[in-house]
C-alpha cells in the first residue's frame, strides 16, 4: 500500500467504513480474470521463495492479442508472477511454483515441457536493462542465432535492422552496430533489450517495467510499438505508471501482497474499481 493512501486512511480512522477499508479481507479475485480461449492461463498459482510465500492462489487468463497490465505496490509479486509465465523462476534454486499454467492449452510445467523452448515462445524484457557484453548487432542477433532464425548473413542483417527499427533504436545506433551494447545509455540499453526480445519473434512478450528507465519520447515509442505488436503478439506488462497502464492495456490486473485482487477492463479498473484495495491504490496515486 502506498504511503499516501495509508496516511489518508489513518486520518479517517474514526469513520467506521474507512477503518474497514484498512483491513480488507482479500478473498479470491474480483472482476473478470477469465476469458474464452486464452493464450495463457494460470490456476491455483502459489509461489514460494524458500519458506516465504510470494504469490497466493492466483487464477488468471491472458487473452490472445491483448495487452494486459499488471499493477500494484512494490514487492507485491508482479515480477514473480510474470516470471512464472516463462519459467524464469526455474533459474532461482530456492523458488518453487505450484498450480496449473498453460500456453495455448498446453501445460508449461509438464514433465516433457522444455523450459528453454518455452522461453523462446514467451519472451521477456527485464526490469533492469541487461545487454550482453557483445556488440549491439550481436545482442540483437543472439536469439536468432540460437534458434537458427536466419538462413544467412543478409537475412540476419535484415532481422537485426527490423528489430532495432521496431524498438525505436535504429536511428541512434545504425553507425555503431559493432560497438558494445553495454556502452549505450540506460534508456538505449532497455530499447536494445526490447529489440533483442522481439527479434526471436515470440508469441507472448512479458515486459517488466520496460520503460522505467526511458524518457517520455522513448516511452511513447515503446508504447506505440506495443500497440503495433498487439496485432500479432500477446503482451503482459508490469508497470508502476498508471497512466501507462491506462494508455496501452485492454485489461488490468491489480496485485496486492501476493494476491491477485482485481482483474477488469482497464477502463473499469481506473474509473470504477470493484475492490476497495484497487480503489485505494489508484486514488492514492491519482489524488
Amino acid at each position, binding site marked *: 500500500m502506498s504511503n499516501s493512501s495509508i496516511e489518508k486512511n489513518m486520518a479517517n480512522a474514526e469513520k467506521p467504513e474507512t477503518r474497514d477499508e484498512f483491513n480488507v479481507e482479500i478473498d479470491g479475485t474480483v472482476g473478470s480474470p477469465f476469458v474464452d480461449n486464452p493464450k495463457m492461463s494460470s490456476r491455483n498459482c502459489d509461489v514460494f521463495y524458500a519458506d516465504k510465500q510470494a504469490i497466493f492462489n492466483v487464477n488468471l487468463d491472458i487473452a490472445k492479442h491483448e495487452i494486459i497490465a499488471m499493477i500494484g505496490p512494490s514487492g507485491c509479486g508482479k515480477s514473480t508472477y510474470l516470471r512464472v509465465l*516463462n519459467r*524464469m523462476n526455474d*533459474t532461482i*534454486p530456492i523458488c518453487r511454483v505450484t498450480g496449473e499454467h498453460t500456453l495455448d492449452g498446453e501445460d508449461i510445467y509438464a514433465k516433457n515441457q522444455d523450459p*528453454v*523452448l*518455452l*522461453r*523462446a*515462445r514467451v*519472451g*521477456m524484457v*527485464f526490469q*533492469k536493462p*541487461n*545487454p*550482453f*557484453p*557483445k*556488440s549491439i548487432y550481436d545482442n540483437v542477433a*543472439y*536469439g536468432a542465432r*540460437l*534458434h537458427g532464425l536466419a538462413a544467412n548473413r543478409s537475412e540476419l542483417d535484415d532481422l537485426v535492422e527490423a528489430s532495432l527499427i521496431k524498438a525505436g533504436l535504429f536511428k541512434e545506433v545504425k553507425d555503431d552496430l559493432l560497438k*558494445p551494447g*553495454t*556502452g549505450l545509455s540506460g534508456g538505449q540499453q532497455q530499447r536494445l*533489450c526490447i529489440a*533483442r*526480445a522481439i527479434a*526471436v519473434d515470440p508469441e507472448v512478450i512479458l515486459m517488466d517495467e520496460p520503460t522505467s528507465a526511458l524518457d517520455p519520447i522513448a516511452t511513447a515509442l515503446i508504447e506505440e510499438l506495443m500497440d503495433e505488436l498487439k496485432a500479432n503478439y500477446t503482451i503482459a506488462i508490469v508497470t508502476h505508471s498508471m497512466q501507462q497502464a491506462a494508455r496501452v492495456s485492454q485489461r488490468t490486473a491489480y496485485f496486492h501482497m501476493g494476491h491477485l485482487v482485481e482483474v477488469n477492463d482497464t477502463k473499469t479498473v481506473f474509473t470504477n474499481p470493484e475492490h476497495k484495495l484497487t480503489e485505494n491504490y489508484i486514488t492514492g496515486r491519482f489524488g
Partner: protein
Amino acid sequence: MAFSGLSRLVTELCSTLRHNGSDQRESPQKHYLEGNMPTQTILITLVALLLFSYFLGRKRSIAVSMSLNEGETPLHSRPQYYGYLVAIWAGMPAILVLTLWSSFNAPIISSLTVASMPETQNTQSADSIGLMMNEIINLAESGKAAEHSDSVLRNAATHYQRLQGISSLAKTAVVFAVALVGMLIGWRLISPETRARNKVETVIRWMMILCASIAILSTVGIVFSVLFESIHFFSSVPPTDFLFGTTWSPQTSMRSDQVGSSGSFGAVPLFLGTLLISAIALIIAVPLGLMSAIYLSEYATPKIRAFAKPVLEILAGIPTVVYGFFAALTVAPFLRQFGEMLGLSVASESALAAGLVMGIMIIPFVSSLSDDVLSAVPQAMRDGSYGMGATRSETIKQVVIPAALPGIVGGVLLAASRAIGETMIVVMAAGLSAKMTINPLEAVTTVTVQIVTLLTGDQEFDSPKTLAAFALALGLFMVTLLLNIIALHIIRKYREQYE
C-alpha cells in the same frame, strides 16, 4: 611505526644496492646491524616526539581558534590537521637526516679508518682492503681490540671505534635538533591562513608516491643487476651462441690445457625444456581448471561449492617440494611402467612426469581466479540469455565466459608464469640433461634447473659458468615480461570492446 619500517627498508635497499654496485666483499649485514641499535632508540624517541607534536599542534590550534574574535577568518582546517602538520614538520626532516646519515655512515667511517692507516696498508687492492676492513670491524665489535697482537690492526680498530662513537653521538644530536626546529616551524604555521588540510593531503600523496617508487625501484634494481651481470657474461660468451646455440654444457675445467675447457652455453635446449614442461602443465591445468571453475560457479549447489572450493585451493598450498617428490617417486615410475606396457621407452625422469604434476599444481591458479570472475558475472546477464531461450551451456559459452574472459586470461597467464618459473618439481623430476627434444617421454632440463645447478656448490664468481645464471635469469624474466604484456594487451583490447 610506518616510518621506522620505511626507513629500515630504505636502509636495507641502500646497502643492497651498494653491495651490488661495487665488487668489494664487505658484509652489508654487519654494517646494518651495528648501526642499528642507536638508530632504533632514536626512532622510538622520534615517534614519541611525533605523537607529542601532534597533540601539541592540535591543542595549539584549538587555542588559536578560541582566541579568534567574531568576524575574523576562522582556522582553515579542523584541529587534527594542524596536529598532523606539526608532526610532519617534526618528523619528516629528522627521519630524512637519520636515513641519510645511517646509509652514508659505514662507507665514510671505513674510508676514514683506512686513510688513517700506514701507507703500506691502504695502497692495496680494493678486495684486500675490503677483507682487512672486515677484520677491523670484527675486531672493533668484539670489544677485544686493545688485546690484539698486530699493532696496525689494533690501532685501526680503536680508531674505528672512536669514529663510530662520535658519529653516533653526532647523529643523535643532529636528528633531534632537526626535529625540534621542524616542530617550531610547524608550530608557527598554526594560523587561519595555513591550509593545513591541503598540505597534509599533499604530504600523504608524496608518501604514497615514495612507497610506490620503492617497490618500483627495487624491481628496477634487480633487473639492472641481472642485466649488468648478463652483459658481463656476454663479454665472454657471444650472445648469438647463447641465444641460438643448441648445446648446453657449462662445465668449464680448472686448467686451461684440459679438453673442453671453454664449455658451451647454447640456451635453446633449456628454453625448449621449459617450454615443453610448461606446455604440458598448461594443457593439463587450463581445461581442468576452467571446467572445475565453470562447474563450481554455474552448476554446483552452494553446499558442494562451499566444500569443493577450499579443497581445490589446498592444492595451491602444498609445498612444491612435496609435488617434486610425488613426481619423482610416484608419477615418473608409474609412467615408465605404463610406457613399458605399451612398448614405449619412457625415461625415468621425463618431461611428462614433471609437466603432469606441475599441471596439477597450477590448477587452482586457473580455477580459483576463473571461478571468482565467473561468479562475478551478474545474474541479470544470465537471466537475459535464459529469457531468450538459451540453454545453460549456451548461456555459459556465449555470455558468461565472454564477460569473464579478462579474468580468465589473467588466471591462465598467472598459471603460465608460475609454470615457467617453477623450480622444485623440475629439479626433482625433469632431469639435468639438456637435450634438443620435444618428446615428452624423454628427460629434459629447464632454465630454472640449470640456474640451480650453476649456483649450487663452490663457484668462482667471475667465471662464465656462474654468470650464465644471470643470463638465464634475464631470459626467463624477458619471457614472463612478454607474457604479461600480452595479457595486458588482450585485456585492454577486450575492455575497449565491451565496456
